[in-house]
Structure formats: structure tokens, C-alpha cells
């Protein structure tokens, strides 16, 4: 473990795991993980491929069941809860794979998550707000499959935002985006965070993580390898050795 590692369970944690373990066959994708996301923060999770980052998000959301350990959301144990019940408690996710309804219009894509918390007559207005926030104004009637990759990524983020989450899990939100789109995505995330949403984000784009400049966790072999401010993480030689490359 790296020298910069902080105490992993922070006070005021909104998501917290204890001894969380997930074994696929003989592989320990997540290995006895004690980890916490503090209420109101943006928390970046980085690490080499196979470090268990996406598996961790799937465990948070209930898509995968843990082999051992517990997950708490806002102080309540949600380890055994189905994904839709975790969503109702304020957890939302954008998966690594593009998860938009490709054959539907942008409006229809947003209607489905928005309808969860809004009456039908409120949806057009809320939809317009979201589209403005995502810089997708005037795309309501377009089929999603016809949008650019970056626009689809934003829409996928917007669909997760549409359920008014307490905690938003974003798995590689900038994958395939241009540098300008990546900067805009960071701005959207900051804006969202300022409105009170806690965000956990998995990223490989270090420029993006540097731009966010928030608390960062390095996962390695399913365990916390390092944790702290990104500036400190970036200076850590051990992190460079396992993930970022030689200084």
C-alpha cells in the first residue's frame, strides 16, 4: 500500500463498504475492501485495468452480489437490496457501456427516469432544464442513435441525473470524448455537485481527474492502494509504478 493512504472510512460517509469482497471463479476482483465516499464530495477512483473499479460500482448498485462484506448507503445496510430499491434510496449509475435507449428519442430517454419522481405534466419543464444543463437543447425529438458519441454520453449522465439521486456513480463518463467535451463534462459534474449530489467517478483520463482535483482513490487488485488529494496521488512513486508510469 502507498504512503499517501488516508483513513479510508471518512466521517459523514454516504456510501461505505466493510470487508467487501467479490470473487469471480478464483479471481478476487474486490478483496476485503473498506472504503467510503463522503457526503457531498466528488470522489475519483482510478487504477489499472482489472483493479476492480467497475465491479465495485456494480456491487454498489446491486448488479453484482458480494461474496462477503457489507455496503451501507446513507447509514443503512443495502447489501441485500435489489438494484431498483437502491435506486429508490438515492443511488444512480452510468455504466461504462453506453446505456441509452438507442432507438428512442432524447425526450423518451429522459421521460422514463424522470417519470419515477415527477408527474407527467412536470416532465417537459424538467426535461428542458436537464437538456440545457447537458448542452443538448433542441435535441428532444432526435433519435438517440443519431447523436454523437459525446452527446450520448451526456444523455446517459442526464438519465442518471433525472432520478434526482443523492449519489451518482459515473463509470468512465468521458470515454471517447474530445478534450473540449471532457472539459464540459467536468463542468457539468461540478455544477451537479454544487447542487448537493455526491459523485463517485471512475476514470482513466488523468487530465480530467487533474481538472476535477478532488479526493482520489487508487484501487489495485481489489484493494485501496492509495487515497488522498489527487496532487498527492500524482506525486506518489508507488502509484506511478503500478498505474501512472514512471515520473
Amino acid at each position: 500500500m502507498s504512503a499517501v493512504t488516508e483513513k479510508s472510512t471518512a466521517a459523514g460517509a454516504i456510501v461505505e463498504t466493510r470487508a467487501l469482497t467479490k470473487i469471480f471463479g478464483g479471481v478476487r476482483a474486490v478483496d476485503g475492501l473498506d472504503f467510503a465516499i463522503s457526503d457531498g464530495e466528488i470522489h475519483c477512483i482510478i487504477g489499472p485495468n482489472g483493479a476492480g473499479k467497475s465491479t465495485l460500482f456494480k456491487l454498489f448498485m446491486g448488479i453484482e452480489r458480494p461474496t462477503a462484506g457489507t455496503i451501507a448507503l446513507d447509514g443503512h445496510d443495502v447489501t441485500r437490496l435489489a438494484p431498483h430499491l437502491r435506486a429508490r434510496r438515492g443511488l444512480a449509475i452510468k455504466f461504462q457501456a453506453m446505456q441509452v435507449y438507442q432507438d428512442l428519442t432524447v425526450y423518451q430517454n429522459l421521460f422514463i427516469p424522470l417519470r419515477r419522481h415527477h408527474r407527467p405534466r412536470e416532465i417537459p419543464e424538467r426535461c428542458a432544464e436537464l437538456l440545457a444543463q447537458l448542452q443538448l437543447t433542441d435535441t428532444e425529438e432526435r433519435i438517440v442513435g443519431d447523436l454523437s458519441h459525446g452527446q450520448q454520453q451526456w444523455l446517459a449522465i442526464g438519465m442518471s441525473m433525472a432520478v434526482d439521486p443523492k449519489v451518482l456513480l459515473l463509470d468512465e463518463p468521458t470515454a471517447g470524448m474530445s478534450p473540449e467535451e471532457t472539459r464540459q463534462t467536468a463542468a457539468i459534474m461540478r455544477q451537479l455537485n454544487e447542487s448537493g449530489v455526491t459523485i463517485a467517478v471512475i476514470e482513466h483520463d488523468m487530465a480530467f481527474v487533474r481538472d476535477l482535483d478532488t479526493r482520489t482513490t487508487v484501487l489495485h487488485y481489489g484493494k485501496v492502494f492509495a487515497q488522498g488529494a489527487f496532487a498527492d496521488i500524482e506525486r506518489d512513486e508507488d502509484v506511478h509504478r503500478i498505474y501512472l508510469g514512471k515520473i
Partner: protein
Amino acid sequence: MAQRHSVLDRYLGPLNGPHTMGRGVAFWVGFVIVVAVLASFPEYMRRYDIINLSNFLISGFLALSLSLLWGYCGVLSLGQAAFHGIGGYAYGIVALNLFNAHGNTDLAFFAGVAIPVIFAAIIGGIMFFARLRGVYIAILMLVVSLLIGTFMRQTADPSYTIGAAYLGGMNGLRPASVEDPLLPSLIFGWGETVIELDGRRPAFFYFVLGLLVAVYLGLRCLVNSSYGYWLVGCREDPNRTETFGYDVRLIQLGVFCIAAAIAGLSGVLYTAWGTYIHPDGFGVAPNILVVIWVAVGGRKDLGAAIAGAIVLEWVSLRLAAEGEIAFLVLGAILVGVMLIAPNGLGITIGDYIRRGHDRAIAWVRAR
């Protein structure tokens, strides 16, 4: 935003929406004309043709049920005809037992719809809460249908009687004794009022046509409501939809039961139409036929599915004199349509009409 396009939306709002073809004046005028033309058939068509047309319309209910389940919610069932058969048997068994006492088939009609729903709730609950999906549901439902058919075929022994109803094995449902009533057509009774709808008479045809229009319009309202969006969400990506807080299992179970009710209704009408029901309806061919009607017409639109059923039933009837060739031709039609218009002929033609209509309007505006 999702703009309402038709001036009729003020009055027909719930019927129109993004999940059904046709929302403008031209569509609704065309719809009224088609229904009016169908309603006028008994005036100038032979009685034999009207009897057959009644049966085609009954097939329309079955097509609607699979369109809702498969086309809107993405749950392909290869055993939808099982609910048709269960509904038919339930209607027949209750009618044979209660007709003498009640003088009508009100309860039998209700049972023919309700019992398939109960059966669907049990088997659907097991399937969906076990998180079965895709091909597993399709195959499981076909197996269930075949198992019911196999059981019903071996009920020729006289011990297989339920009160006044003898299941009758391969020969189908019949009275248990000569004192018991014959399997009746639909007879509705309210107090002194009795309405008899004999499957060979125009009144039955009008009833089936009216009911089909009502169910079609009701389902249009359903699929264009918020519930319709949830169905489409489950079809497009059930895992993603679940992460928005929707219990996908309950949504799938709900639509499975609604589809079973509609398929059961078709079974009731079929049994009342021919005053017989037999186990062949649970076989592979009847189940696959429903899939062919819906796939050829267009599974993602209710009207296209009905049109597919009626047209292909007519084709089957025309080819019936040629022996087993009918099924071969239907199979060839399915393959051809899947290659040329994978969304179904009805939807593809509808798309061409819509594009032509949009171009014409643009041309007129440009002038």
C-alpha cells in the same frame, strides 16, 4: 418537447402518442372508414364469409396480446396460444356447469378471462422473479403450452369430468352426459334482458368487432401512457430501467397478465364462436402462428399486429384446400418479411406513408 401533432389531440390525446402509429386526422378518418367497411360486411357478404371473418377478428385479440408483450415489453413468448386455450376451456367448463342454473354465460365469460390471468400470475411470477429473460421465457412458455396440450389430449377417460363438463381428450370439451347442456354461444343476461350472440350470426360478428376496437383503443391509451414508457424501457434495456428505480419484474409480470387476459378473451370468443374447444390449440403450430402474425404485421404497433393476423388468417384459409402448404407459405412469408422489413410490413408501410405525408406537407409549405 414531445409535441402533440394533431388538432384531434385535444379530444383523442390519450389515444395518441409516440408508441403507436398514426395520430393525425388522416389516420383517424382512415380508421373510422376501415371499421365502417368491416361493419358493413354482413350487409352484402355471404354468411360463410362473415363466420370466417369473425374468426379472423378473434385472432386479432391474440395478436394484440403478443404485440403488447413482445413488441412493447420485449418479452417473447412462444406459448401465447396457451392462454387462448386456457381461456377457451375455462369458458366452456364454467358454461357447461352453470348454464342450466343461470341461463346465461356471464360468469363463464368472466372465468375465461380471469383464469388465464391467475395462471399467468403464477407462472409469470416464477419466471420473472427468477429473473428469466429472452429465449428462456420463449422456450419455457412453449413447453408449458405443449405440456398442457399433452395433458388435455390424454383426458379421454370418462373420469376426466368437472361437474357437467367432460374434458374429452383429443375430441375436445363436451357435456358429461346427455342431460347436460351443449357448449353454448355467448349469452349475456341482466335481469329479464337476455342477449344471445350465436357465432354463426352477424350479431356475434358485430360484438367481436366492437370488442376488438374497444380493446385496441384501450391498449393504445395504455401504451401511450407512462406505463407504456415503462414497458418500452423494459424492452430496450431492462437492466438500465431497473437502475432508475423501476421494479422490472413487476412491470413484466403486469404486462404478462394483461396479455394473458386478452389471449384468454380470444379463447372465450373462439369457443363461443365454434361451440367447441380442443387440445390442438396448445400445439407448436398455433403458438408459432401467433408469432408469425405479429412479426409479419409489426410487433411494435398494435394495429399492425391485428392487420397481420387478419391478412395471414385469410391467406391460410385460402390455402387450406391445398393441404399442409399453408404453413409452408406462412413460413416463407415470415422469412421474406424479416429480410425485407424486419420491423414488419405494417410498420414499414406506415413509415413510408408518414414520410410521404411529411414530404407533401413540406412541399405545400414551400409553395
